[in-house]
């Protein structure tokens, strides 16, 4: 009897295990199904946030307009080059020279002053004034 009851017990136990497993799967799927709506609502919010992004992407659109205006600027810059070419002319050099460029200029009271001739006699201090008498 015991040998006959043992397989029966195993069959019942196995069937129970299958039922439990099936119930577990069913519950899990229900939980996923119930969880799905929640994530769905969550994405809705992100979608709402991502909507502003599209709103932000219109900003890139103005940025696309900006390039157009940039193109306009470049066009106006294309017209400007003549002026731009003229502007750098008065300010060609901003670097302090390591070697003093030689020069000869008229000096007050008559005559000319040449730097290299002065340096043969001694050092020189060159002072640039914005106006005379400084």
């Amino acid at each position: 009897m015991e040998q006959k009851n043992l397989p029966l017990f195993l069959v019942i136990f196995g069937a129970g295990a299958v039922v439990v497993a099936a119930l577990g799967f069913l519950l899990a799927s229900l939980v996923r199904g119930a969880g799905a709506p929640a994530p769905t609502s969550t994405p809705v919010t992100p979608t709402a946030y991502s909507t502003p992004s599209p709103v932000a992407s219109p900003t890139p659109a103005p940025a696309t307009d900006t390039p157009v205006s940039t193109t306009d600027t470049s066009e106006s810059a294309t017209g400007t080059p003549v002026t731009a070419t003229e502007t750098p002319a008065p300010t060609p050099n901003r670097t302090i020279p390591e070697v003093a460029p030689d020069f000869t200029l008229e000096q007050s009271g008559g005559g000319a002053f040449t730097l290299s001739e002065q340096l043969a006699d001694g050092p020189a201090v060159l002072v640039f004034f914005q106006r005379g008498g400084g």
Partner: protein
Amino acid sequence: MQSHYQEFKDAGTEVVALVVASIEKVDGWCKRAKVDYPMLADSEHKVAEAYGVYNLLGQGLAGPAAFVVDTAGRVVWSHVGQHSSDRVAAQTLLEQLP
């Protein structure tokens, strides 16, 4: 600068002032200010450009600047003013003489 000119001369150094202006204007300024040091007329601002100080303040003039040049022609010290009253003191220049 005028009040310290003799100190520069005693140190064997010549002080030269450069102004972007015509020689007539420079002569007029010299007579009024009674300066003893040479004042040069850089009327075409070529020297100011060569020293990198022309039109620094956007006025078509040389910016206030000073260069100490040794007998080898090297600029051993310089000061370039960032505004019209940014001028180096004569005493500072005396201390920088080679």
